[in-house]
């Protein structure tokens, strides 16, 4: 659960009278919503490290791709998938 996953910002959306800055972030094929409130200067096209729905750090494209590939290899991208159907048997393979 402590992992942070790199993704690319696709779009930015200001919500609640501009108080909440959310982004659509693409991780490989999967797009998820993430808060950009910890990275006020992050923009569309930037790569960010996202931890449990919050972008915590910017990183360059090369680093983002390298890390993403590593996480994919060790089977740690499971948490991006729909986790609500959680059952003990459907656990991430690497864990």
């Amino acid at each position: 659960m402590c992992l942070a996953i790199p993704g690319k910002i696709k779009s930015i959306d200001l919500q609640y009278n501009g108080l909440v800055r959310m982004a659509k972030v693409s991780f490989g094929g999967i797009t998820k919503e993430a808060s950009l409130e910890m990275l006020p200067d992050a923009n569309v096209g930037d790569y960010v490290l996202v931890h449990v729905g919050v972008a915590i750090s910017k990183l360059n494209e090369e680093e983002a791709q390298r890390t993403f590939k590593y996480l994919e290899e060790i089977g740690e991208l499971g948490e991006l998938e729909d986790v609500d159907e959680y059952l003990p048997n459907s656990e991430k393979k690497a864990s």
Partner: protein
Amino acid sequence: MKYMSEYRDPVLAKQFLEEIKTTVTQPWSIMEVCGGQTHSLVKNGIIEMLPDEVTMIHGPGCPVCVTPLNLIDKAVYLATEKGVILCSFGDMLRVPGSQKSLLEAKAEGADVRVLYSPLEAVKIAEDNPDKEVVFFAVGFETTAPANALSVVHAHIRGVKNYSILASHVLVPPAIKAVIDDEESKIDGFLAAGHVCTIMGNAEYHPISEKFEVPIVVTGFEPLDVLQGILMVLRQLEQKKAEVENQYARIVREEGNPDAQKVIHEVFEVKNQMWRGIGEIPESGYAVREEFAAFDAAKKFSVNIAEAPEHPDCISGQIMKGIKKPFECAQFGKTCKPTNPLGAPMVSSEGACAAYYHFSGMVEQA
């Protein structure tokens, strides 16, 4: 070197390993604090490749593993007796409580949901106005901004049926506690990279100076861990004790100030119980008085007696680095990831589960 071919850059990995071998002249013990690093060390066979002089000790680096038993019992109680929608991260569900785990509560009909992010829990609360929604907010400093932000979002959106059951643990006080423990002898530390992405490195300088230990802020990929180990060893051999940053491509000295701001807005530092270890001063976060309406501990009066740990589980000694998982008599026998007796067997970042899955230690146990 059976695992070497699996490295992204086997040449560099080999080079780090050679350098480690030529650097070491005497035995050293190094603790990696982050469970992701433990996972990497065990899964990639780094432990077996290191020279005999270097002993890696697995620290308490898994928030799931150190969440107090009593809080698990509280979460189970809220889900089963108070009818709340109880949300958390996946790993939390299987952690054994004194009676049952959240997963068992779910199987018996309680509304327990696994979420990717605490921010989703605020939406669930909005969509279920006649239900109370509680997010079981565990984590290290890395996760604190997200948990704090969920409270801020609920506040901004006027969501009144949302609260968090906070169980946060902080790394620097844990490092101090480990150094202070007479039984554990650790010469140097790999600090957790993602924790420092948020908090920066400032808190580690006084620890390194006072206790004269090298602390290297390190990433979690195999090459990061190898390089971090090498950096600690170089300092040890040169009798230095400094804070170094192996993970500078992500971690900045000052961390992420915006994240620190939201953490301090919502949380204040408090003494915290660590499962298997005990209370560590100023090592956790409590929800500030201003946000008491979002604090599940205050919102629901839950009084559950402290229950004892499973008598056969030695997780405290494992997490302080005094014993290795295979030295536990239950390891791989009565205690397995499918039926964990203690928390370190639950999460893949827990030391017992990491050994169980990857190290071939199962046969030896």
